[in-house]
């Protein structure tokens, strides 16, 4: 298992805080472990809450053409990469 990059750690912390995963330390989320079908076993309501938190913090809209979230950001690694690739201006500067 590879160690988290600093940004992955930041996103892992957001996941744990947003979803109230009290038993999970951010460090413990393996970057390549499936968020939805792996250890964490997140569901679609989690996905929505996470999407909201991500959009508010990083000004990026999460999208998935199909209902399944697996393709778009199935792991911490792919989610962090997606955010980095698409993040917008700081929230204060974003147009509502």
């Amino acid at each position, binding site marked *: 298992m590879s160690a988290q990059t600093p940004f992955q750690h930041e996103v892992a912390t957001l996941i744990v805080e947003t979803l109230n995963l009290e038993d999970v330390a951010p460090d413990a989320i393996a970057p390549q472990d499936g968020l939805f079908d792996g250890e964490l076993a997140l569901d679609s*309501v989690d996905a*929505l*809450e996470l999407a909201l938190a991500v959009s508010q913090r990083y000004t990026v809209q999460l999208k998935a053409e199909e209902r399944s979230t697996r393709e778009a950001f199935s792991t911490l690694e792919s989610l962090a990469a997606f955010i980095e690739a698409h993040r917008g201006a700081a929230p204060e500067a974003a147009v509502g």
Partner: protein
Amino acid sequence: MSPLPSPETRRTNAGELVPLFDRAPGDAVLIEAAGPVSRVRIEQRVNRLAARLRAHAGSAPGMRHALNLCDDRRHFLTAFAAVIAAGCVNLLPPNRQRDTVAGLVERYPDVFIVHDGSVTGMELPCAAINVRPAANQASDQTSGQAFGQVSGEASGEAIEPTAGRGDDARTPRPAARRDALAAVSFTSGSTGVPGANPKSWGALIDGTAINARAMLDLASEHDGGTLTVLATVPPQHMYGLELSVLLPMRAPVCVANGQPLYPADVAAALERCPRPRALVTTPAHLRALIGSTVPLPPVERVFSATAPLSIALARDSERAFKASLIEIYGCSEVGSVARRRSAHDELWQVFDGLSLAPLPTPSPDGISYRVSAPHLRTAPELQDTLEIVAPGHFRLAGRQGDLLNIAGKRGSLAEITRHLLQAPGVLDAVAFQIEQGRLVAIVVAPDGHRDAILGTLRAHLDPVFLPRPLLFTDRLPRQPSSKLLAGDVRALYEQLLGARNRA
């Protein structure tokens, strides 16, 4: 609008063959990527699939149970109808978890699965049929040969072999007898075997007529035009089944395929829907939609169900979508029972055609009621206590309904609270459901430990009922009467959450 079903209609027409799709031949039943699909085209698909199912189930009449695990809404709808047309019964599990599926396979030894490819890689415990047309062109021909003679008695389906596909006028109508068993839904408790709720085709017809009248307001608002619905909920549960499968089959409703999740996808999908259009969704999705910065297209109607909806979110949603938001109240046994425009009204309105009758003995929380209607075999008890304010109008009496439904599993707040109080070190506790659909708990446990408390709950409850989060406090805001008011609990919850997130 057609008249409401009556007991006489039910009795005299029990053996009557009723077409599955009650729409004009060219009316759109659903919209897929390639465009709208008319009643006739859907019927052709249903006929083809029913033929394959009949070949699989054998030509003998009888109860063959089909577990519909189709992910794609149009495949689900086609398969749902084809199962009925083939004289089989749709099993509607409360969720798709392995244990649940295994339990049904054990309970119904003649079960087979219908799916659309999304179960690839899963170990399936019984025979399975992939309903996707592309996957089955070869077997289409095989089944065409297989059913040269079709018995019409049991399923009530009288169909000629392979009617010319281009010849819409001669496409036979898939149909079933009113008294044919069409579906079984399950109400799952926190322990024990899920209760089965059998529904005849006649019951689905009558229930859908009641729903259409209560939910569509067509005469007044849309001049009889077709309403396009986009649903964010799955078609398997009663709410999604009623609004995104049964209504398109039997009312001027067209369902857009898909089940978008993220706000950007929901908005894009809505934008593609012709107007008039309605969003069929839940508080969890509304929270995400309103909280996002995605511009939301106007709609004619928003429906919400499955979890408590706050007045604030109802009002925000109406503003954002420029439409009335109708909240639906129901129970698993019956489906939808009452409606309310939650942004404006406190009182629920029972659907025309359904009746409420009080139970003789009031509970500590108030009076409980049974729902009855001519088409219902039993009169199930509603899990909330009600206060009937005028005929057909009620408010919920308790601080919150005791029964909650998470991921298709029914739990009792009272029971969960009892388990909390039995956990080591817990002196006082309250559990409640939030808009996301989850359970939250606040406990007073100065010497208690989170792990021990959660461990106690895990031993007794399904994981979906584990509180998230479990919060600690010094004292619950009880009234002198020792009652807990919803508003006070909510305020404490927000306060504790805020304090914890700042820490």
